């Protein structure tokens, strides 16, 4: 019989990524660049919100966008028309990004000369929840047509984000969307979350999100 011994490793699988992300966050801070990681299911309205946000802020801030939609340049082209600095990350069919890819994207858009970076993550509410990308804040979108029961299905994502945007509120008359029930179940998972109902189509509610961004940028750049 061959003799084997147990050698303990006890290392979290995400540890290397978390360390890289932390270094990235410190570099962003040192350069006064505020970054949000924007996550949602496919079609919830990430790109539309990004374009709307750029239009409302481009006079005051130097903005960059990292697009990570799976193997398509469509979103990058749409966003570049809005005037921000854009790069497309090719994630090779992966369902999530890691901190190494986010560093690559930030270098390409030259983040040191930007005030605000939006990373449009791959449309997926499960895998990206495990990866720190060095962002200052995590923002997710849930659109009205998706329904208010989603926090039960994706508790990890809802518990980790700083902001929940409820998008497409202009469609609320067509769908049974219970804002009160949604807020209740979200706050159970994440008591301090900010919730902004918006329509990127009519602009309703957009100001609340824009003001939040401005306030957070101020805080990020202090001290």
């Amino acid at each position, binding site marked *: 019989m*061959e*003799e*084997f*011994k*147990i*050698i*303990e*490793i*006890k*290392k*979290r*699988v*995400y540890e*290397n990524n978390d360390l890289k992300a932390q270094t990235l966050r410190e570099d962003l801070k040192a350069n006064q660049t505020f970054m949000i990681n924007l996550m949602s299911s496919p079609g919830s309205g990430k790109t539309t919100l990004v374009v709307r946000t750029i239009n409302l802020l481009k006079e005051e801030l130097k903005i960059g966008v990292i697009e990570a939609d799976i193997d398509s340049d469509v979103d990058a082209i749409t966003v570049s028309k809005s005037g921000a600095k854009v790069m497309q990350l090719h994630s090779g*069919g*992966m*369902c*999530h990004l890691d901190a190494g890819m986010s560093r690559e994207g930030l270098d390409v858009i030259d983040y040191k000369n930007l005030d605000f970076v939006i990373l449009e993550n791959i449309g997926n509410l*499960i*895998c990206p*929840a*495990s990866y720190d990308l060095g962002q200052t804040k995590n923002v997710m979108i849930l659109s009205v047509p998706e329904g208010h029961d989603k926090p*039960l299905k994706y*508790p*990890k994502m809802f518990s980790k984000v700083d902001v929940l945007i409820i998008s497409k509120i202009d469609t609320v008359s067509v769908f049974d969307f219970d804002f009160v029930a949604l807020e209740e*179940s979200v706050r*159970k998972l994440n008591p301090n979350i900010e919730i902004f109902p918006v329509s990127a189509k009519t602009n309703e509610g957009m100001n609340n999100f824009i003001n939040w961004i401005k306030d957070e940028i101020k805080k990020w750049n202090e001290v």
Partner: protein
Amino acid sequence: MHELGIVIEIVKQVEEFSKSNNINEIDTLVLQVGELSGIVPRYIEEVYPIAVEKTTLKNTKLSIEVTPGLGRCKSCDFTYNLFQNNNTCPICDSNEYEVLSGTDFMIKEILAK
């Protein structure tokens, strides 16, 4: 796709570990996967042979230990398995809980000569 990328990363980490600890032959790699980690053991097992192909772990067996996703009910204090009960307390039906275990995803240990 998700699992393959992760397992490739794990294999890299284990290879680095064995290199720096002068371990030549690994019989078994033991992972610890929590029921609430979002990682599905069956998928890990499925992609493992692909991930170890052409690596020094190609003859290494994989063993996965699952840690239960336990939570404590915030209304009645009952401790139950969140994963099996759909995050709802079987005693009082509340879905307010505090997670006690099962979010871990770790390279636990290796069996080696």
